[in-house]
């Protein structure tokens, strides 16, 4: 074999294992237009379905006339709530323990709500059919403001029994969903009262939308002969969809096959269960033909899950020299018409109580009131773990506000309050156990990299020049030190509708030394086929290029809870490493047998087992694989396969230090990001290039959210941002240059020490951009303004501060 002449370094390089910037194996097909998305699924006789949607945000539906629609050539059926009712499918449970209308049942509660489902032989006929359906609406008063909702006599959800508890306990008002609390309110209030300095502020994180490039859709195909339902779709959690579909439809779970093909971005939008899936399944059962439903952009922005919409009222207290003594937060959370948040079931406000951030805060309290309004349902984690972006934005704004109150430098205020390295594992006042971190090192590295002192000096000069009329541009320095909580999660407290949030990996090594591994997760652009193969390469000694990673087909992949909340690497990545170790353990027995020594007399070396003290005697993984199938080995079953299901003992806590330097034109409200420095610590780094790609993408989404992207409604509940003309998606032109950096603090409880990174840049990026805007105006008295910081809002800030003369 050639192996003898290959050096150890070459063998390591050949693996392309952990730490290698291996090129993404997915990109060849994506960059050549050879991906296979749900809309590429074309089946013989396939029909198309589309929705009649409500133009009103709140109205009674007095009647639906389908006569004209049925006359449109090609239209085969129009489903309404009446047709679904006998099946019990006119309403469906949400992931948050509420229920949601599949099709309008007597009234509509948000603009864009699904009213009827038209099924036709092609898309064009379907669109004509949608237009021909006549709906008799009687409009009702509309509530788009959650504070007003909590005062109003108007009952939005007439289906809910007055005074009865909701899924998360008592409801205070007919438009109230839940109050969820954590921490010690009495002690927190006492700390606030007895502190030298208290800063109070309302921090609003506006409603936005994940807006993946590919919208949501599915193809449902019911084979009436063998009773099997196959469902292709844009699912971030295919196994959960299978179980939910089985529970809802009564079809046995083994008769349902859910396939997530290539997914063109998810960002949380594709976690939810939508009426389109239910209607497609019903339509396929009714017609006996495959039925495809694909949202258009407006459907996606107006009706499928939004993100954020949190009004966070904060109080933070400190000593005169800046040591934080307490944190109090009350959130009014606008959930829209149905509570369809995608959170672990026991956490109706997600992990918002990570809002003590990177700081050692002795006492804290959080209360979140969920409220119904006439807006689209949702509340998904848009490129963040559950409500973690809201939490990070809240604390990073409160720190800035406190710095203003203390007349102190915000970088210094952070430094003196960071949790210290020796305090880890650290239990926060709100109950989380932070696994590891080294915040001071990261912070100092970041400040030095950007020459923080130099930037502050330049800024002071700029303020002078501005006041002297020499410039109309201000300089903002946006700081953020965020701590994430990802990798949901330990089954003891994390489940979705009762399904524990473990994940899984199943590996088969083929006789000639290549392999296939299947996972319970599903990539939507994260590069799993690249990085999970690298984990396995390092664990099993099989080169990553010889490992196929497959996800998304519930008939072949082991059960898992899917991909969102940066959970794939922390959970499925751990399962992958452990399954690899099982392979290696069996391989060791085989190697020892082949080498005629005791199991303990061989040791692992990159891609082989070597006899201790006799390095010329070894068996490579490829040789072992062949033997495992083809040689009778006493006491050892043939084959080389392993399965691992991983229930994480804890969450992981990635963190990072970001600095954004921004120029702001006070006359037009335009901004320019001059510099963006992003230091991420995601523990062990599997593929630095993939990490960098994730950071660039996440920062760009953060830029979008902070600087312009929003789902806005007028007083009538009309969505004003239903197209990409008004919903801000940055192009390469608007995207600044990013400088990435890292420190590496491995997770102590994760098999390979990895923590997850996909969402960090969004979590840390939003406050960094927003803080830069605020910081530019700090010298002129700005404490707080609301995102998104688009041109006119920045202009308004400047105007209100009297900067327009």
């Amino acid at each position, binding site marked *: 074999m050639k192996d003898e002449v290959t050096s150890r370094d070459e063998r390591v390089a050949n693996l392309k294992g952990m730490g290698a910037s291996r090129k993404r194996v997915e990109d060849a097909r994506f960059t050549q237009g050879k991906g296979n998305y749900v809309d590429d699924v074309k089946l013989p006789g396939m029909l198309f379905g589309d929705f009649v949607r409500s133009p009103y945000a709140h109205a009674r539906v007095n009647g639906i006339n389908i006569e004209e629609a049925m006359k449109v050539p090609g239209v085969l059926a129009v489903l309404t709530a009446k047709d679904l009712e006998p099946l019990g499918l006119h309403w469906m449970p949400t992931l948050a323990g509420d229920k949601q209308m599949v099709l309008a049942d007597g009234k509509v509660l948000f603009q864009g709500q699904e009213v009827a489902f038209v099924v036709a032989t092609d898309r064009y006929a379907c669109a004509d059919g949608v237009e021909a359906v006549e709906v008799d609406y009687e409009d009702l008063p509309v509530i788009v403001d959650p504070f007003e909702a909590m005062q109003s006599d108007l009952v939005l959800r007439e289906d809910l029994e007055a005074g009865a508890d909701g899924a998360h306990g008592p409801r205070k008002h007919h438009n109230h969903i839940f109050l969820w609390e954590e921490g010690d309110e009495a002690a927190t209030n006492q700390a606030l009262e007895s502190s030298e300095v208290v800063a109070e502020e309302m921090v609003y994180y506006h409603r936005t939308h994940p807006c993946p490039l590919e919208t949501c859709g599915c193809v449902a195909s019911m084979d009436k002969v063998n009773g099997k339902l196959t469902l292709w779709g844009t699912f971030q959690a295919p196994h959960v969809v299978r179980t939910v579909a089985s529970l809802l439809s009564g079809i046995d779970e083994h008769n349902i096959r859910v396939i997530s093909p290539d997914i063109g971005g998810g960002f949380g939008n594709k976690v939810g269960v939508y009426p389109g899936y239910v209607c497609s399944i019903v339509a396929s059962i009714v017609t006996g033909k495959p039925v495809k439903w694909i949202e258009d952009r407006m459907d996606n922005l107006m009706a499928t899950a939004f993100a954020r919409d949190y009004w966070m009222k904060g109080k933070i207290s400190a000593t005169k020299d800046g040591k934080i003594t307490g944190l109090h937060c009350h959130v009014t959370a606008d959930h829209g018409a149905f509570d369809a948040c995608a959170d672990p079931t026991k956490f109706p406000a997600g992990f918002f109580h990570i809002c003590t951030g990177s700081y050692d805060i002795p006492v804290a309290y959080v209360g979140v009131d969920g409220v119904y309004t006439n807006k689209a349902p949702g509340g998904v984690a848009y490129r963040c773990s559950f409500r973690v972006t809201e939490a990070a934005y809240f604390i990073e704004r409160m720190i800035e506000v406190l710095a203003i109150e203390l007349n102190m430098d915000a970088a210094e205020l952070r430094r003196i309050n960071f949790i210290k390295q020796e305090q880890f594992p650290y239990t926060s006042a709100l109950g989380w156990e932070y696994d590891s971190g080294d915040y001071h090192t990261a912070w100092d590295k970041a400040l030095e990299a950007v020459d923080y002192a130099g930037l502050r000096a330049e800024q002071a000069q700029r303020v002078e020049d501005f006041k002297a009329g020499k410039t109309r541009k201000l300089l903002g320095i946006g700081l953020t030190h965020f701590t994430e909580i990802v990798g949901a999660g330990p089954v003891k407290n994390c489940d979705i509708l009762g399904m524990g949030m473990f994940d899984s990996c199943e590996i088969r090594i083929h006789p000639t030394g290549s392999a296939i591994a299947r996972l319970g997760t599903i990539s939507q652009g994260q590069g799993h086929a690249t990085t999970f193969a690298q984990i396995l390469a390092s664990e099993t000694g099989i080169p990553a290029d010889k490992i196929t990673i497959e996800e998304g087909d519930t008939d072949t992949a082991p059960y898992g809870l899917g991909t969102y909340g940066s959970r794939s690497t922390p959970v499925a990545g751990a399962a992958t490493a452990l399954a690899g170790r099982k392979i290696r353990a069996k391989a060791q027995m085989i190697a020892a047998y082949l080498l005629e020594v005791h199991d303990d007399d061989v040791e692992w070396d990159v891609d082989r087992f070597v006899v201790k003290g006799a390095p010329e005697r070894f068996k490579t993984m490829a040789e072992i694989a062949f033997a495992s199938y083809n040689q009778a080995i006493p006491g050892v079953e043939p084959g080389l396969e392993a399965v691992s299901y991983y229930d994480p003992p804890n969450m992981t806590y990635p963190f990072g230090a970001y600095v954004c330097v921004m120029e702001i034109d006070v*006359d037009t*409200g335009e901004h320019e990001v001059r510099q963006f420095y992003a230091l991420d610590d995601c523990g062990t780094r599997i593929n630095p290039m993939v990490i960098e790609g994730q950071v660039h993408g996440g920062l760009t989404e953060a830029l979008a959210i902070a600087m312009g992207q929003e789902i806005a409604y007028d007083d009538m509940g009309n969505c004003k941002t239903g197209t990409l003309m008004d919903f801000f998606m940055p192009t390469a032109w608007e995207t600044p240059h990013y400088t990435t950096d890292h420190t590496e603090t491995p997770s102590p409880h994760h098999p390979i020490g990895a923590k997850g990174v996909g969402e960090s840049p969004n979590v840390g990026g939003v406050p960094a951009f927003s803080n830069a805007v605020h910081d530019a105006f700090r010298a002129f008295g700005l404490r707080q303004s609301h995102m998104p910081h688009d041109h006119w809002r920045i202009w308004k800030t400047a105007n209100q501060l009297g900067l327009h003369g």
Partner: protein
Amino acid sequence: MIPAAFDYHRPDTIDAAVGLLAEHGEEARVVAGGHSLIPMMKLRMAYLSHLVDLRDVQEMQGITVDGDTVTLGAMVTQHELITSDALASVAPILREASLQIADPQVRYMGTIGGNVANGDPGNDIPGLMQALDAKFVLAGPEGRRTVDARGFYEAAYMTAREDEEILTHIRFRSVAGMGYAYEKQKRKIGDYATAAAAVLVAKDGDTISEARIAMTNLSDTPIFSEGAGAALVGTSGDGAAVAAAIAAMQADIDPAEDNRGPVEFKRHVAGVMLSRAINSALSRA
């Protein structure tokens, strides 16, 4: 986002195209680049049974510079407005402005004729045409006529063009030697203007001898502000003159609130764009 059914026609002469419009009346519309019309049809805000594609009409192509007369076929794309050196030598403002329209993909398809005939106040070229004092050549069943760009726009999507008429050519005189600038504020690439200003100025020594100013997306039509131009003429373009021009322009515009911002913001930005455009144009005069 699926339009209702329609018939598609592809004539190769102006007369044939006009004939189709006359035959089908309100049910028919011409399509040029399709980048304003097709989205409206997909949103089902426009219903047309007959689309008359002008792509094969050779007479409506091409850029001609004859002495100081410039003639543009209505089917000249926005991309061609950028790449034509002949045009840049007689009216460089067209290149500067076209680079700020939409994005390259839209500009490969979108035409100058579609942009000016559309009547959307957000379109950038109509204001430019008013600054250039362009004439629009219209062909209809009754023959051809010429209309001034400054008199063409009546209200949003309402112009002096009759339904059966086609805009075939655009003519204007060379503005070589005049200082020029097109300043546009937008939220992102591919966005229509929050406010935009087109400025052409000529100087006699240090004194401004001629100034033409037009504003975009600040009323339901483009605004050619004679008052703003007049405020500059006879001055050196100093701060006071620019302030007077801005005040005159602000008296002519009537912006509406939308997602780009409220009225007072737009008025303010209009002033900033105009002041920048004047200063830039003066530096080139």
